[in-house]
């Protein structure tokens, strides 16, 4: 019975029935080939291996996508972390990118590459689904959560100063504009994936003005979405409830300011998979969107054909849905989940199986 429920839900997780009015993909296929061009940032460490798996699966699925390889190794210009111009041009031209894990260069004062990408392309919403995977047992088997995080301001404004020695102020910035676009995207996303509720998670008992503004914007916007139910909940209560019984939120799209979203999205992954290893994500901007695996570059197993490409594959599924290529998305998603569920020899070592990166990709391909 879990199986049938699983199959039904899995279609609804990433499927985009109607394209949202904000952050919509406006790219056109190449007239010569009929294919859409996607910038592909393969990333560091295990990035090239799992990227190859995605490419192989896309070829087998006959997805109308051609890749444009893209190197984002950061440059430091005037002390600022900067994406190389060719990469910027590629992404701005194609409007969409798939990204493997990047090793953040360690250096004092440099912005992380992920943050740089967000700033460069104005990626205001981070979409993080977390879903139990059949065939990989964790303490929870009924997790099916979607969270959207404000990606540009809040506690991550980067405005901090030492007022006097030993006294620091960090400023959390909440603006009407940034709140509005991310909450609007949440409403649109809820409609698109067929979830009836949007849940605003906040702490306006304590931060009455800042989180109060976020809640107020949501209340105002909800009038434009009479078909979607708006709920608001204090962060404490959401955390308590989701760890107690994640199924309470299976018909909900949660949306929250930056820090709460950062924490809750990782907490959700902890519930669904015990780690970030299987978690896909989308970063949505007005023009450009970038889809990425959340996990790190795992340099310890790089080049050994051991890494699990599931997170990047699921990110590519989110990407196909975002592009409106829903049937390819459904096909690939189903093949990934049924491959994992089928047998231990079709699971990589992180899921307790014996598959290699390439043999797992073959198992997916054989199920397409």
């Amino acid at each position: 019975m879990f199986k049938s429920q699983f199959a039904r839900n899995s279609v609804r997780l990433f499927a985009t029935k109607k394209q949202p009015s904000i952050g919509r993909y406006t790219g056109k296929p190449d007239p010569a080939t009929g294919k859409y061009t996607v910038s592909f940032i393969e990333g560091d460490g295990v990035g090239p291996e799992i990227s190859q798996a995605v490419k192989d699966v896309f070829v087998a699925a006959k997805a109308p996508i051609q890749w444009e390889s893209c190197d984002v190794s950061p440059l430091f210009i005037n002390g600022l972390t900067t994406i190389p111009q060719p990469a910027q041009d590629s992404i701005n031209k194609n409007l969409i990118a798939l990204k493997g894990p990047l090793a953040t260069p360690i250096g004092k004062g440099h912005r992380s590459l992920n943050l740089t990408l967000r700033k460069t392309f104005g990626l205001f919403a981070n979409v993080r689904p977390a879903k139990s995977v059949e065939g990989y047992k964790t303490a929870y088997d009924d997790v099916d959560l979607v969270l959207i995080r404000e990606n540009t301001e809040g506690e991550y404004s980067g405005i901090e100063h030492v007022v006097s020695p030993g006294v620091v102020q960090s400023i959390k910035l909440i603006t009407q504009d940034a709140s509005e676009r991310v909450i609007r995207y949440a409403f649109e996303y809820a409609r698109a994936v067929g979830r009836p509720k949007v849940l605003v998670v906040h702490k306006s008992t304590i931060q009455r003005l800042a989180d109060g503004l976020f809640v107020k914007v949501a209340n105002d916007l909800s009038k434009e979405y009479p078909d979607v139910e708006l709920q608001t909940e204090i962060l404490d209560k959401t955390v308590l409830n989701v760890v107690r019984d994640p199924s309470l939120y299976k018909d909900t799209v949660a949306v929250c300011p930056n820090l709460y979203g950062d924490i809750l999205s990782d907490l959700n992954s902890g519930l669904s998979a015990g780690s970030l290893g299987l978690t896909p994500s989308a970063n949505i901007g007005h023009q450009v969107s970038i889809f990425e695996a959340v996990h790190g570059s795992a340099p310890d197993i790089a080049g050994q054909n051991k890494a699990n490409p599931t997170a990047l594959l699921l990110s590519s599924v989110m990407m196909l849905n975002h592009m409106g290529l829903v049937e390819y998305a459904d096909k690939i998603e189903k093949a990934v989940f049924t491959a994992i569920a089928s047998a231990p020899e079709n699971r990589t070592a992180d899921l307790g199986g014996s598959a290699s990166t390439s043999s797992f990709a073959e198992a997916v391909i054989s199920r397409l």
Partner: protein
Amino acid sequence: MFKNGIGMSKRSLASVAAEQLLPKKYGGRYTVTLIPGDGVGKEVTDSVVSIFDAENVPVDWESVEISGLENQEGVQKAVDSLKRNKIGLKGIWHTPVDQSGFGSLNVALRKQLDIFANVALFKSVPGVQTRHSNVDLVVIRENTEGEYSGLEHESVPGVVESLKIMTKTKSERIGRFAFDFAVKNNRKSVCAVHKANIMKLGDGLFRNCINEVGAKEYPEIDVKNIIVDNASMQAAAKPQQFDVLVTPNLYGSILGNIGAALIGGPGLVPGANFGREYAVFEPGSRHVGLDIKGQNLANPTAMILSSTLMLRHLGLNAYADRISKATYDVIAEGKTTTQDIGGSSSTTDFTNAIIEKLKAL
């Protein structure tokens, strides 16, 4: 089993309080401020009062009944009473979400009394079915600054700044408290929870203070660090790896709610707030329970166990041992438990079962 945790601690939980600052007894009895608060507060404090009565605990209550819906001056009554008695048992005040009301009275009380250290204990309870077993973690939370500074302004319409204040003094103070707690309760490690990769100055200061205090003053305790999002994920997946966590204000609230969910709900989490002079004992997971108010459904375990922490603070260990043993025994037997942990008994039936158990001990 609770004994292995906080039970064996001496009367020195308020470790920074000097002996002469502890509450005085008159005629062999202590006076304790009792603040039921809102929601289920009245029912669960009634439970404690009737257990104390049945046990002839040498405690007299000075009851302060105000509601979180009242204005800020209301909190003054509670502050005055606590300043007199130096010790209190408290439920949670409700904080309305709408903009019309005043700020949180809970925060106001903590700031006025400078009860800076919040301790909440999350330990698996035998007899309560949960997904994870053998959880035994402590969250020690800075209670007076950070994201709860209450300093906010609207620079122009639609642009709000909210200030998070972190200070060296208060970070060191909470660090010292946490390490002291670890030493006195035979804990092995203290882990600082932070987001210093983003808030490099604010959370960086917190992390550095904890690490320095630990390395210089408590070499016998292991010092660790973890980023708050990773801590949350790990706590949901493998909570057994954690021992004592020390956190700024907001992260403590988040990890505390994860911890409560892991062991079976907020009704099972005891807690306390300590300052230099005052100690206020309240459930470790601060939920008001307005939805089940007045229905005799609430689980008073969190409040009962908080009251046993209070008894230990007063040096009344024998009473504390008996009451906590009786409470754990009734839950383990599973015949008379409240609905939040799978039973069907009322608050008063559960309380009476504990009183019966105490007679047999």
